[in-house]
């Protein structure tokens, strides 16, 4: 399972980087989204994947079941997803405004202002 997820993470990361390098702002945003999903999967995988019992529930505590799974990576991912969602919403609004003001979504239009 780890191997599959590792490849999936790598694939998403590669796709994200590829999209970041395109000239369209829409693709830029999609790229950032893919990157953030691949990082979420990375945390999930790094936190350890194995079948185990849930933690902190009464029935488990009473039955004395061992081999618990770690719930923390999922909490981290949940937080990261929420933050990523907010940022994506902001980024989309920014892109829309940029398109309204400049009438283009070509990143090459950003070059002005860098050199002078």
């Amino acid at each position: 399972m780890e191997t599959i997820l590792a490849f999936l993470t790598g694939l998403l990361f590669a796709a994200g980087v590829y999209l970041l390098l395109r000239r369209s702002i829409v693709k830029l945003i999609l790229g950032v989204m893919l990157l953030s999903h691949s990082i979420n999967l990375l945390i999930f995988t790094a936190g350890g994947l194995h079948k185990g019992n849930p933690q902190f529930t009464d029935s488990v505590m009473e039955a004395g079941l061992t081999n618990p799974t770690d719930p923390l990576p999922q909490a981290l991912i949940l937080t990261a997803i929420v933050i990523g969602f907010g940022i994506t919403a902001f980024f989309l609004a920014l892109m829309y405004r940029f398109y309204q003001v400049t009438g283009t979504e070509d990143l090459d239009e950003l070059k002005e202002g860098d050199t002078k």
Partner: protein
Amino acid sequence: MILPALPVLFPLITIIFLLINFQRREWQPWIGLTGSLLQLILAVFILIRVRYEGILVLHTGNWQAPFGITLVVDAFSSIMILLAGIIAVSISIYSFEAIDRQRQSFFYFPMVHGLLMGVNGAFVTGDIFNLYVWFEVMLMASFVLITLGGEKKQLRGAIKYVTLNLVSSLFFLAGIGLLYGKTGTLNMADLALKLSVANNNILINSSAVLFFVAFSIKSAVFPFFFWLPASYHTPPVAITALFAGLLTKVGVYAMIRFYTLFFVQDKLFWHPLFLWIGGFTMVVGVLTAASQYDIRKILSFHIISQIGYMIMGLGIFTVAGIAGAIFYMAHNIIAKTNTFLVAGLINRATGSYDLKSIGGLYKVRPWLAILFIIPAFGLAGIPPLSGFFGKLILISAGFNAGEYVISFIALAVGLFTLFSMVKIWNEAFWKARPENSGPSEGENEKLPVSMVLPVVFLGLLTLTMGFAVRPILDFAMDASLQLLNPGPYIEAVLGSDYLSH
């Protein structure tokens, strides 16, 4: 003890008051100012408490470390919180006149306090994932501030700013995930404990590099600085001054915290790297600044150059080196913000930031020239201003540690900084006004008091830091000693019971 949480709660409460009264535009700046003043008083109080009682710890929700989120204020954090308070007050006063009504009524003040909340949160937290969350709070507020007003050039700058900062956050998150996978903890003190007995440098360095890239982008060091000069000159100057003072320094803060507390195993790899990166950052920043003619762009490139000095202090890694980095950071936050505020005044007086089209200001406004010269020569390192002592401490620490190359680079860069500052001085104040520039609107108006006051305040602080070096340096030395001997920090967070088994 609730004290460590208050630097976060104060801005939050200010935001609530600002939002309740958002329709009363004339109240907004006053509420913002009250909030910042309270924050400054709180910061002084915390500084004194930390000085006399040692490290303050709060286990939120009473979850004991390392399971809950811990807030920790040690000497280094308390200095940074105080600096954030000083900048908050200055910007709040400056914004009365410098930010137009439209921006003020579109949540400018709530966003400034949102940014301060994120910055303070990053300074107090003792948990790496929580640090990520505070970074995001800070970034989100800064995204809104940099785009506020929606001018074309702002949007252009914002896209670069947003993209690169998001990528840096993702690197940070990846580092956290991998480190958690290896150690099973997110608490900084617990990480320090677990990594101190780890013996596989390659495994630790693979996460440490991710953190290094993330913080490098945030603090705009070579070769990750490109977003900064592309975006910092676009928003109104009060916002730029706030960013210049605080945002990049949060990155440096995190870098110093991480690489003194727990990534300390592989000194042979990291410390020369820091010195190289610091040297390149200084040189590239200062040389690119020399070719610019927009005041704000010159100053933006100087932010980069000066970050190099702080990274150099970290790379020297002696008590004097880290103390020098902290002293330099304190000096730089105050002087850098001040130069941007003065740039705003120059713009108010002449209607332009372009050095080619302004001139003769010394004749018209000699006081403005003096207000400029204090922070500018402070940055360049002319005695008796604060920058001189900051550089002196760092460079003598470098020589004592036997790092001659970086020390000579630092000396030479100081000279080039002086060149840039003298260039602004010559062009804006000394030379005659260019003939083709017509009379500008604000020429004979008095500059608004609310814009001059913070400049005077910060200028006095720069002077004070120059004349009262000893007590401030003692503070920085204390902070540096705490950073280099993390034992008490770890014990304060985890408690002696946890350490004994």
